[in-house]
């Protein structure tokens, strides 16, 4: 986060923290925070980023600190991509970047300059549901619906990458997506059915 303020050396911070601890006082300064005497704020840097999102070309000035997830949700209103942990543990924010599945929370928006991004909003063609969406609906592959976008984006990638040959293989591929409501069996049922139908995904 050093782009937001100037820094001196890390050593003086450590010295200060140790000094405080020795008199029984702990500070909440995180390890990557810096000594306050050298603190000089600078304006929020923005950068121009070209993205293709759900088939639409966009040229955006984005806060360089913004994750792709927050850009989609907070700036572009594409809230179908969910935030479940913001650390890549849960899979709720799974999207496709250049055709490959990826956690939207794990990369900054500026890393995606020139990338082609597909979110759940870009999966169906108008009123026509994507076969995986239809199968999720049919098999009741969700309850609260919060992990669903991520599960569906992973499921589509699973089928496209040929990783759905049997239930065990599907489960392994889908391991990165948590469903706390516990709809796992219905999710695998849905993916398996799409696979068996042979329909193009």
């Amino acid at each position, binding site marked *: *986060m050093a782009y*937001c303020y100037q820094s001196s050396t890390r050593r003086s911070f450590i010295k200060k923290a140790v000094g405080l601890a020795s008199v*029984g*006082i*702990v*500070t*909440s300064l995180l390890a990557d*925070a810096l000594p*306050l005497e050298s*603190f000089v*704020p600078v*304006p*929020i840097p923005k950068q121009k980023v070209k993205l293709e999102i759900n088939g639409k070309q966009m040229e955006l000035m984005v806060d360089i*600190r*913004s994750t792709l997830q*927050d850009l989609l*949700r*907070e700036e572009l209103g*594409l*809230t*179908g991509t*969910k*935030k*479940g*942990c*913001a650390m890549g*543990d*849960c899979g*709720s924010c799974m999207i496709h970047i250049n055709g490959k599945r990826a956690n939207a929370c794990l990369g900054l928006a500026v890393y995606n300059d020139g990338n082609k991004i597909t979110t759940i*909003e870009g*999966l169906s063609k108008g009123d026509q*549901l994507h076969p995986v*969406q*239809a199968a*999720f*609906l*049919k098999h*009741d592959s969700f*309850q*609260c*619906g*919060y*992990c*669903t*976008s991520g599960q*569906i984006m992973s499921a589509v990638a699973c089928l496209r990458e040929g990783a759905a040959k049997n239930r*065990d293989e599907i*489960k*392994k591929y*889908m*391991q990165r*997506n*948590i*469903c*706390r*409501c*516990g*709809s*796992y069996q219905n*999710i695998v049922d849905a993916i398996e059915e799409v696979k068996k139908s042979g329909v193009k995904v």
Partner: protein
Amino acid sequence: MNNQFNTSYFPDERVDGLEKVTGKARYTAEHQIANMAYAVFICSTIARGKVKKIDSTNALTLPGAIDVMHFENCPKVPGYKPSAFPELKNVGEWRGMKVFGDNLVRFYGQPVALALAESIESANEVAKMVEIEYETEPHETDFHTLRKDPSKLKNGSTYSRGKSQAYKEAPFYVEAEYNIPIEVHNPMEMHATIAHWETPDTLLLYDKTQGPKATQSAVARLFGLPDKNVRIIAENVGGAFGSALRSWPNVSAAVIAAKKINRPVKLVLTRPQMFTLVGYRPQAWQQVGVGADAQGNLLGISHYAISNTSRYEDFREGIVDASKFLYKCDNVDTDYKLLPLDLSTPTWMRGPGEATGCFALECSLDDLAFKLKMDPIQFRIKNFTDIQQESKLPWSAINVKDCYAKGAELIGWKNRKQMPKMLKEGDWYVGYGMGVGVFGAGRGTSTVRAVLRTDGQLLLESAVSDMGSGTATAMVKVAASAMKLPEDKIKFVMGDSDLPPGPMQGGSTTTSTLGSGVHLVCESLKDLLKNMAIESIDAFKSIAKENISIENNKIFVANNNALSITVKELLDMRKVPSVEIIKTSPGLNTREIQKATNSFSVHFVKVHVHSKTGEIQLKHIVTTGDAGKIISEQTARSQMLGGAVGGIGMALTEEVKIDHATGKISNASLGSYLVPRHTMIPHIDVWFTNKPDPYINAIGAKGLGEIAIIGFAAAVSNAVFNATGKRMRDLPITKEKVLAAKA
């Protein structure tokens, strides 16, 4: 009461399914309000003590910074000190921690300040730059050590009938201790609140809540406002499992901050904060003794428990309750105490109390059955009773024996051996186990408005929210049955406190409570339509009301084809665009019906346990429910699947770890607090008795959200014993524990 529920109109889809699979369903944090500020909690890095100094000078110079709120600059909140605001009406003391109300630190991770900024990125940065000095005091978080000191325990409650500790005099008995760690709900959607003061005394609040009306009144009383001045919106709730049954500090903090900076404020918890700020299943120690005669008749049950609470609130749950009433036994004694620790307050988590208690009880019964050389199912059938043993009232309905039979058939119980280690596949021991769950089946008060329009659409409205169990889907089915109307003509509107008051979605009561309300309002609507027909149409005047039928928005007289009018024709004749009716369905009075009301479950699992590594693999699960009439088969089945999956986590992986040196939860993430994932899930069969309960309500349905998990962990532990001869009494059952255990 008659049970008139029929299932002829029902397709399977969830009514909100399309929105959920297309990403259009909106959850709390996804609402945008102009000029909204972003808030981030700054949380304590000590477990107990005081905030000495907060310096936000530098933080506030950061670009985008708006404010940093803490105990020194927090506006006065009437609900924090009710006596200080005698002039205000409707002030109630805020329940739980009064965030920023003082400088005390009660647990590690307690919010001590709130960073407010123009964007989420800036708010995060501001939060990191706030400098806080603490004065630390010694803290206590080590449950296992402290529970042994009687002076630390409080608020004991005891129960006994017959002789205490009678099990010890029985010809056969077992006694053992059981431990359950802290478990956290961790719904996929993190708790979030958006607070918007539309005028100085009217508030619009988007909030993740299981009860819009309860949140409305909690927030109104915080500021001494009439309830109607506070509007709560909870369109979709991304899971909760109990965590959203009360309003936590994120609600009060967002509301206060929005007042302070005079702008809408959005506050979303982080995943680590989900471990400390919105409750958890308390850690519990239990000791159970059960004794029986040689024929297997239970002669005594003793169940003692201690669970943790916080220092600032008592949280109790029914850990020892099932032992008092589920099985036929004349001698029962229980004792339940609390151990306050320097942790945040626990709360109800799926199957509260009973999930913990039934783990110990059901393992103990398996243990005793083994000692008696009896099949565990036969042992339970031997001690079956249809009289609730504590109240001595007969159950309104109990079909648990059907669950034993069907579950045993589906899991292949006949392949089970009575002695452990008798079945092996390669290096894997094979075992079968079962466990029983029970939970209260209540019925509360609900008010529902029905609006039937000339275009034939029926609108039903109630201020409830749905965390995923499928409330709207079930209610549409109840209405479709009552009105004999296709489901696509019916819409259930919810998630807004401005609607007629509905119940909290919790304690497995929504279908019973709200279903009764929907059923009542539909019956009243039909009555109203019949009256209108009789009043407005000459030919109907001579017809007795009971001979008039309504189906598919047509009012007609059977056996008289000439006498029929559509709802549209009737409303046009009366020159009204719609007909509207609002009805309140009363709660269940169990004293009036002289019955005990519960739902029951029996879970069966088949496990493989590796003989060299101790690894446990679930191979097959059968989960059976006895919860009255099943209203919505698809969503009820999904709830049972989810309960089993939650039970897998409880049995095998879920455990909050606390670093007692600091009091900090050391695995506060979904990467280190392990919840079940795809590869852990074997094939799961779900089966319901699906027999209407004739007493509970007009639709014959009871709740099943809790019973879906209660008793499940015991089934796993019992299966591991059957496979290996090792009795696993500490959850979660890890391979390390299996290896270390003695057969």
